[in-house]
Structures are given as C-alpha cells and as structure tokens.
C-alpha cells in the first residue's frame, strides 16, 4: 500500500489554494478493522489527507524542490462521520507563508456538507546534508501531473474544478 490519502489533486493555485478528492471504498482494508461491522473513515487518516493537500500547496511555493513536512496540527475539528461510498473534497488555503514554514487552513466536505476543518503548520527542511528530496517524490509528482493546469516545471497556474 502506498501512503496516499488523497486520490487526485483537482485544483492547484500556486501558493494560494489546493483542492483534492478522495473516494472512500470498502475495498480499503482498514475500514474493516475500523470498525468491524461499522466501517467509518478514521479521522487520523483524514488528518493525513488534509496534511497531504496542505503539504502540496506549501510545496508549490518552492516548486516542489524542498522537503516540506507537517510540523503541527494546531486545530482539527470533526463534524460528522465519513462512510464507504462518500467522496471527500479537501480544500486547503495557504494563510501564512515564509521561508521557514507555512500555515494552512483546510476543510473537508462530502456532498457540500462540512465534515472537518483544520489548521496546520509545515516547515521547510533544507534539502542539503545529502537528504535529497524525499517528500515530493516521482510518485507524488505523478499525482500532481494529473491535475488540470499543472505544468511540468511546477509553476502551476491553477486548474479546473473536477
């Protein structure tokens, strides 16, 4: 299993906002343990989806050339449960950004209904010291290239809602 908790980035406006979707399906193993007979999407993994959407948004500021990692979940509020068959829409906004780090505000909706909101902080790790780029890997960049309007050099111009 790959650690992707969003299926597709559907919109990316460099340094401003990002939108991604995840379809929740009963084929996901974890839903059968969480909980037996009552499958619901774990909130911890919804946090991860918000972090991935926000992390991509923060990464767009540096054209995905630096490692950007989640450093703090300042706030996360959940309003309802998410079930197999639901499509979660993640919408992240970059509210603070500077060379050391960033803050995002992200919401999740299902069918237009608010499911969760969070405020997160990300930091830029220097890609020096032989670490290389381990966040925006080829697999992740492939996901991004499927986003409408995404340009290969990372200078995203925004895409269409999808």
């Amino acid at each position, binding site marked *: 299993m790959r650690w992707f908790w969003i299926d597709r980035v559907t919109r990316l406006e460099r340094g401003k906002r990002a939108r991604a979707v995840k379809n929740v399906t009963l084929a996901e193993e974890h839903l059968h343990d969480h909980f037996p007979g009552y499958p619901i999407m774990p909130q911890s993994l919804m946090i991860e989806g918000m972090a991935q959407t926000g992390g991509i948004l923060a990464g767009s500021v540096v054209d995905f050339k630096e490692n950007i990692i989640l450093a703090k979940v300042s706030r996360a509020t959940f309003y309802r449960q998410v079930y197999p068959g639901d499509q979660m829409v993640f919408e992240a906004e970059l509210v603070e950004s500077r060379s*050391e780090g960033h803050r995002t505000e992200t919401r999740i909706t299902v069918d237009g209904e608010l499911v969760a909101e969070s405020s997160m902080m990300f930091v830029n790790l220097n890609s020096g010291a032989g670490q290389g780029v381990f966040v925006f890997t080829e697999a992740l960049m492939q996901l991004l290239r499927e986003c409408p309007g995404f340009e290969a050099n990372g200078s995203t111009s925004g895409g269409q809602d999808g």
Partner: protein
Amino acid sequence: MSDREEIFSKVKESLVEALSVDDDEVTTGASLTRDLGAESIDFLDIVFRLEKSFGIKIPRGDLFPENLLTNPEFVQDGKFTAAGLGELKRRMPFADLSKFEQNPAVGAFGDIFTVGMIVGYIESRVRTN
C-alpha cells in the same frame, strides 16, 4: 489601558492560541519553553500570530535569534563567551539578560525567552514604526 498593558493582552492572546495554555499561565516572567511547553515549531506559530495581531512583519531571527549556539565564537564549553553575550545584547536589546549573564550556560538560554521579552520586542517595534 496603557500601551504596555494592551500589548501584553494581545501577546497573551497569541500565546494562549499558539500553545494551548490557560490565560493565567501567561505571566510576564513565564518562560516559553520551561513554563509554557513551547517546542521549536511553536516559535514560528507565535511569530505568525504576532504579525497578524500587531500588523507588523517580523523578519527571520529578529525575535528569536538563530545560529548562535552553533557558533564556537559565541559558545564554548557549554557557556556563552563574552563575545556571545555581546552578540546577544546586540541582537536582543529588548531582552532582560541580567540574570542570564550571571551564569550564561546553554541550558539556561531558553529562559531568556519569556512572555515579557516578547512584550519588550513588540514595544520596541511599535515605537519605531
């Protein structure tokens, strides 16, 4: 409300939000790390909130100086040198270093970063603006 009281009140609000601490824990003498449990990322969180609250830009390293502890000219054998203390005074004229100077051990460095220090920094910024 005096200017200082108003600044303190807004600083307190930022710290309560950034560090999830209670109002009454945020006293002038409280150390951000020892008393309020701040970790490294929280310093950036605090800077973001102060910038918004006071409508100012806080350049990197201006409020919380960087690259001091790793400089052998400033720190030797776990203590700040005279040059290091001089550098601290130059970079942090808004901080009260009198107690730290008596025993400038690296381990006590975090105690400089108090609520009162932030209030002093904001005061100096508001004055010059």
